[in-house]
């Protein structure tokens, strides 16, 4: 294997693994903040016990998210040095701003929150977790602006063969970035919502701490319902935006080969990349793709055949990931709507609870698929239309990357298992309520 392939694999390992932890951090911090706010408002200690229970899981998850995040920033330099040099004028500042405005805030107040249970008033404690929640979502905003720039570079002029910033606001406020941010944040919030619902379901099925977990479940249900509906609508807008800005990606998403109006969607299709067609096409819905992409039956949708062969993304992977992601997205909307109707007696809906327990991994999978669509669909470009991935890799020896790839895989495997075991252990624990009076005595 060559340096390019090894570096791509390593980046994939590092990002997929990192993004197992990020979405939960983004969403669960908000849910805990809501719980603590409820505690401040109602003085009901159950909300505090809830915040503590979910807080423990949050901290385990957060830790792994943090330590795997540092690697990503450094990998641009170690493995993608030519890319870094090429885009540094625009991509670099976005990363630096992320660290300056978001990471400091997040890291400082996570410590204040984790070590401040006895030192802070409930109100100050709630404020610190709100700051953590705000800062984590803010960091996501900046890194997604950076990623969006790789997808759809704007706000630059070419100078000495590399893009140089000429309009910062254009890069920061471009619609592509806004749509990506909304999509990723909503998806992350769904991960957290399903996580809380699933673990609550586990305890409700065992009939322990029923009141606490019913409340947790309901908070997470409303949260997930809102974002599950939102992500579907927003996802559609995101798709239309792609049609305009990344035609190759859109064509790959639907395995669409022939340019033309009334572009169809097939319910089942098997892409045959070699012969530039689908080997199997079942369930033609005429004009559906034109309609979805451009809101008009007669709109022409570029097919993959009209995109030079060396500029086509890997169709099968992009297509399958997209289909699965969309299916899962629909499923989340369905499950949360069902939950809405069952919400009043949720603790006795055993079948629904069981489904929700086993649904915990699904939003994680949807996120991974979403990133596959985004990143695979951009190939062969590292910066869409400007630089090919193959031209961005560091001129380092393949053996070096091979060794670090193996090390990454092993370390992450161990870390992943450790985090999973610890989270499973703490998720199963039945939380204890500490009456307010006793707390006052200890403080």
């Amino acid at each position, binding site marked *: 294997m060559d340096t390019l392939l090894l570096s791509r694999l390593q980046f994939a390992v590092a990002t997929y693994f990192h993004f197992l932890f990020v979405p939960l951090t983004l969403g669960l911090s908000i849910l805990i903040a809501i719980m603590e706010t409820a505690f401040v408002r109602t003085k009901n200690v159950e909300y505090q016990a809830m915040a503590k229970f979910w807080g*423990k899981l949050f*901290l*385990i998850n*957060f*830790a792994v998210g*943090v*330590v*795997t*995040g*540092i*690697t990503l*920033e*450094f990998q*641009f*330099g*170690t*493995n993608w*040095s*030519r890319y*870094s*040099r090429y885009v*540094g*004028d625009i*991509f*670099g*500042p976005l*990363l*630096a*701003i992320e*660290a*300056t*405005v978001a*990471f*400091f*805030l997040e*890291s*400082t*107040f*996570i*410590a*204040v929150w*984790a*070590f401040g*249970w*006895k*030192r802070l008033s409930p109100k100050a404690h709630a404020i610190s977790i709100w700051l953590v929640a705000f800062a984590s979502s803010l960091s996501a905003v900046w890194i997604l602006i950076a990623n969006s720039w790789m997808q759809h570079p704007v706000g630059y002029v070419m100078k000495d063969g590399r893009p*140089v*910033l*000429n309009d*910062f606001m254009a890069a920061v406020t471009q619609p592509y970035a806004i749509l990506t941010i909304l999509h990723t944040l909503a998806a992350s919030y769904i991960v957290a919502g399903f996580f809380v619902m699933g673990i609550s379901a586990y305890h409700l099925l065992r009939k322990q701490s029923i009141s606490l977990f019913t409340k947790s479940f309901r908070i997470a249900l409303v949260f997930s319902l809102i974002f599950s509906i939102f992500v579907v609508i927003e996802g559609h807008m995101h798709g239309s935006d792609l049609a305009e800005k990344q035609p190759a990606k859109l064509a790959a998403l639907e395995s669409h080969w022939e340019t033309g109006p009334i572009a169809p969607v097939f319910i089942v299709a098997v892409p045959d990349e070699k012969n530039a067609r689908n080997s199997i096409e079942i369930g033609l819905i005429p004009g559906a793709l034109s309609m979805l992409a451009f809101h008009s039956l007669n709109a022409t949708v570029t097919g993959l055949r009209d995109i030079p062969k060396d500029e086509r993304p890997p169709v099968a992977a992009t297509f399958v990931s997209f289909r699965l992601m969309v299916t899962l997205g629909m499923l989340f909307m369905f499950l949360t709507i069902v939950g809405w109707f069952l919400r009043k007696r949720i603790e006795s809906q055993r079948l629904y609870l069981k489904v929700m327990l086993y649904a915990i991994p699904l939003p994680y999978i949807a996120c991974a698929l979403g990133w596959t669509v985004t990143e695979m669909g951009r190939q062969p470009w590292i910066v869409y239309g400007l630089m090919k991935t193959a031209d961005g890799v*560091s*001129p*380092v020896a393949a053996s*070096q990357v091979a060794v*670090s790839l193996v*090390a990454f895989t092993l*370390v992450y495997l161990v870390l992943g298992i*450790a985090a999973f075991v*610890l989270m499973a252990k*703490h998720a199963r624990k039945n939380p204890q309520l500490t009456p307010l009076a006793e707390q006052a005595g200890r403080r």
Partner: protein
Amino acid sequence: MLETIWFLLWGILWAIYFMLDGFDLGIGALLPFVAKNEAHKRTVYTSIGPFWDGNEVWLITAGGVTFAAFPATYAVMFSSLYTPLMLILFALILRGASLELRGKTSSQTGRLLWDFCFVIGSFLPALLFGVAFANIFKGIPVDSEGLLQGNLLTLLNPYGLLGGLLFLFLFLVHGSLWLAAKSEGEVYERAGAIARMLWPVLLIIAVLFLIFTAFQTKLYENYMGTPVLFIIPALCVSALILERVYLGKHSYWKAWFASCGTIVCATLFGVIGIYPNLFPSSLDPKYSMTIYNSASSPLSLKIMLVVALIFVPIVIVYQTWAFNFFKAKVRKNEGEEEAY
């Protein structure tokens, strides 16, 4: 002008990073020597628990600023130092994980494994950062393509190793001072004793480093050109001596602050010495990455300067507040219900 401002900020960011993460890296490497039982270990972990993550963000920022202000330097620096950087990264991953997950692990063996990761994960970056920076001061054999002509062993030359030892001992003393300031009882006694024991060793290494620097590097050229700059190494040595004075009086916080001064000045001593280079090549000066051939466009530098001028003071305010909030000594049984 903008480039020079960012060069200074770049140096200062690294200096702050070493000053802050230095003490928790040092404490990590000292764990087996200061903690004899579980209660001691708990004290050690809790003494840095609320701080280490915020400290490490300065590394992310230093890295981010290298990328943003001097992309070509970032590219050459990080790819040519591939192996040592990967080692540092793995070390930081393992130690970060152990800091957060150890307290939630109940099995004895599990905790010992986390302790092991914590110690190695702290020792290695302390040493390797020193090796890397000493080599940068000296010049690194990179060619016109930014490729390293050599391997990890090339970097482990005598001067590089001396730099590694310098950082290691700076951090060990820094850490033991912090621990003494933050603890009571046996841990306090031991941390203080270690600081007193290590200080003379640090002094010898520092003097050796200053002497070797004259022979192995061109750092002093800038100082000869602008003698007023000698104030930096002078401050460094004075802070080091002040450290010993406070150490004698058992004023550990004051000694720790003096140690902060030592570390910042030691870093700046080297950084100012290489100006206008960021990453000098030892093969040929024309392969060196400088502020002239690697800086971002004036617009990028200006935007970042505005962001930095607004947000860095805010960060310093709330981080100082948080340091102050957690400055009390770690009490017995503290943290059992909290993160540790």
